[in-house]
C-alpha cells in the first residue's frame, strides 16, 4: 500500500474515533450504574442498567418536552412548506415584480441573527398573550424556516424543465393539473429535503425556545435538557439518557433519510 493510502487510512480512522467515541461514551454513561459514573478508569461498567432512562421518563420534564418539540417542529415544518411551496414556485416560474430583490431579501433573512429579533418578538408574544405556548414557538421558528424552505424549493423547481408542464398544457391539462400531476411528483424529493431541514432547525433551536417558554406547557427538548435539574449534584447519567432521547429524531433522519438530508444540505450551500 502506498504512503498516501496509509495516511488516508489513519485519517479516516482518526475521524471515526473522534466522532464515534463521544457518542459511544454518552451512550455508555446513560447505561452505567450511578455509583460507577465518577469512578474512571475503568472505562467499562460492570453491568448495564436502564435506571437513568427510567428516571428521565418517569420523573423529568423530558417526555413532555419531547411531545412539545415534536408538535412545534412538526407544525413549523408544515407551515413553512405550505407557505413556502407556492412562493418558491412563483419565484422560480412566474414574472413576479421585484423578483431579484425578493430573493436577496429571502437569502438575507436566513442570515438574520436570532439575537436581534428576540427582544421585539418577546414583546410581541407577551402582548398577544402567547408566552409559553406552542403558537409562539411555531411563529418564531417559521420566521426562520420559511426563507430557508423557499430558497431550497425555488432551486429545486428551477431544476425541473418548464417544458414538462408546458407540454402537459398542450395536451389539454389545466395549469392546476399540470402542477399537481407533473411538477409536484417531480418536486417531492426536494420537498422532503426542505421539510427535513426545517424540522431539524426547529427541533434544535434554543434561543427562542428558551426565551418564550416558561413551563412544561411549551418547553422543548433543548430547553429541558439545558435546564435539567440536579438536587445535590449534577445527575450525569440522567443527563446522558436525556441527551440520547433528544437526539433520537436526528439519528432516525440521518439513518433513514440521509439521501434527502444531504441533498438539502448541499443545495442550500451550493446554489448560486
Amino acid at each position, binding site marked *: 500500500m502506498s504512503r498516501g493510502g496509509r495516511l488516508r487510512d489513519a*485519517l479516516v480512522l482518526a475521524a471515526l474515533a473522534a466522532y464515534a467515541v463521544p457518542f459511544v461514551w454518552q451512550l455508555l454513561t446513560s447505561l452505567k450504574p450511578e455509583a460507577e459514573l465518577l469512578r474512571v478508569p475503568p472505562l467499562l461498567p460492570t453491568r448495564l442498567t436502564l435506571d437513568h432512562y427510567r428516571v428521565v421518563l418517569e420523573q423529568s420534564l423530558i417526555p413532555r418536552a419531547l411531545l412539545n418539540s415534536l408538535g412545534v417542529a412538526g407544525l413549523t415544518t408544515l407551515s413553512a412548506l405550505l407557505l413556502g411551496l407556492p412562493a418558491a414556485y*412563483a419565484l422560480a416560474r412566474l414574472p413576479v415584480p421585484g423578483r431579484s430583490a425578493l430573493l436577496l431579501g429571502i437569502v438575507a433573512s436566513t442570515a438574520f441573527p436570532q439575537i436581534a*429579533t*428576540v427582544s421585539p418578538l418577546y414583546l*410581541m408574544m407577551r402582548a398577544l398573550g402567547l408566552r409559553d405556548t406552542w403558537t409562539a414557538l411555531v411563529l418564531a421558528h417559521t420566521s426562520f424556516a*420559511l426563507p430557508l424552505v423557499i430558497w431550497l424549493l425555488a432551486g429545486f423547481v428551477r431544476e425541473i424543465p418548464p417544458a414538462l408542464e408546458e407540454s402537459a398544457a398542450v395536451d389539454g391539462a389545466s395549469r392546476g393539473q399540470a402542477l399537481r400531476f407533473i411538477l409536484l411528483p417531480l418536486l417531492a424529493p426536494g420537498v422532503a429535503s426542505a421539510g427535513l431541514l426545517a424540522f431539524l432547525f426547529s427541533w434544535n433551536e434554543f434561543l427562542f425556545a428558551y426565551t418564550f417558554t416558561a413551563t412544561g406547557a411549551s418547553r422543548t427538548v433543548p430547553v429541558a435538557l439545558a435546564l435539567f435539574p440536579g438536587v445535590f449534584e449534577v445527575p450525569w447519567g440522567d*443527563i446522558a439518557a436525556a441527551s440520547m432521547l433528544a437526539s433520537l429524531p436526528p439519528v432516525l433522519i440521518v439513518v433513514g433519510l440521509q439521501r434527502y438530508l444531504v441533498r438539502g444540505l448541499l443545495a442550500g450551500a451550493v446554489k448560486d
Partner: protein
Amino acid sequence: MTRRERADRRRGLLLMAPTLATLAVLTVYPGAWVLWLSLQYRVPAFGVDRFAGASHYAFLAGDPRFWSAARTTALFTVASVGLELVLGVAVALALVGQRRGRHLAFSLLLLAWAMPAVVTARLFEWLYHPAAGLLNVLLGGLDLNWLGDPALALPAVVLADVWRTLPFVAVLAYARLLGIPTELYEAAQVDGAGRLATFTRVTLPLLRGVLLIAVLFRTLDALRAFDLMFVLTGGGPAGTTETLTVYAYRGLFQMLQLGFGSAVGVVVFALVMLVAWAYLRLLRAGEAAA
C-alpha cells in the same frame, strides 16, 4: 404586456402574498422594532420606558465588557472557522477513495451536525469533567479543569464547536471532490506532478468555490453562536467565553434592560450583515480578476 403576462404577474404576487405577509410581521417588523428599542431606556421590571437616543451605543463604546465580548467573538469565529476549514478538507480528502468505514464515518459526521447544539454542549461538558471526564482520562489521567480554567475555557468551547460544525465543511468538500473526474488526476500524474502539486494545482482550485461558500456560512453562524457557550460555560469563567450574543442575551433577559440588550443585538446584526456584504464584494472582485 400581454393579458397572459399580466395574469401571470398577478398570480405570482398572489402566491407570494402569504409569505410576504408572514415575513413582514415576523422578520421585517421586529427588525425595525429592535432598532427603535435600542434607542430606548426600557426596563419593564421598574416600569422605565423613555427615549435614550444613542446613549446605549455611546455607553458600549467605552464598555470594557462589550469590548471583551467583541474580542471573544472574533477569536471564537477565527479559530473555529479556521480549524473547521482545514480539518474538514482533510477529512473530506481522506473519505474520498476510502472504501472501508466510509459510510459509517459519513453518517457519524452528519449526526454530529444534525444534533441539537445543546446536546453537544451536554456531551462535551461530561467529556471535560475534571475528575471523570474521558478527555482527561485519555490524556493519561490529567486533572485539567477545562471549563473552569480561564485559559482553557475558550479553546474547549472552540473544540466543541469544531466537532459539531466541521461535518458541514467536510460534507460540502466531499461532495465536490466526488464530482472531480479522475482523468484530471491522471493527467496531472502524466505531467509528472507530485502529490503536493496535484493538491495545490488541481484539487484546491476545484474546491475553492464550495469552500468559499462554506466559510461564509460558517462565519455568519459563528458570529451569532449562542447555544453552545451558553450551556457549556454560561460565558464564564471570568467572562472568558462571553461572546456578543451571550452579552446581549444577559442584557435582555437577566439584567432585564430591553433597550440596552437590544443595542448589543443590533451590533451583532450589523456585524453579520457587514461581514456578509464585505465577503460578497470580495467574492465578486475575485471573480472579476479570475
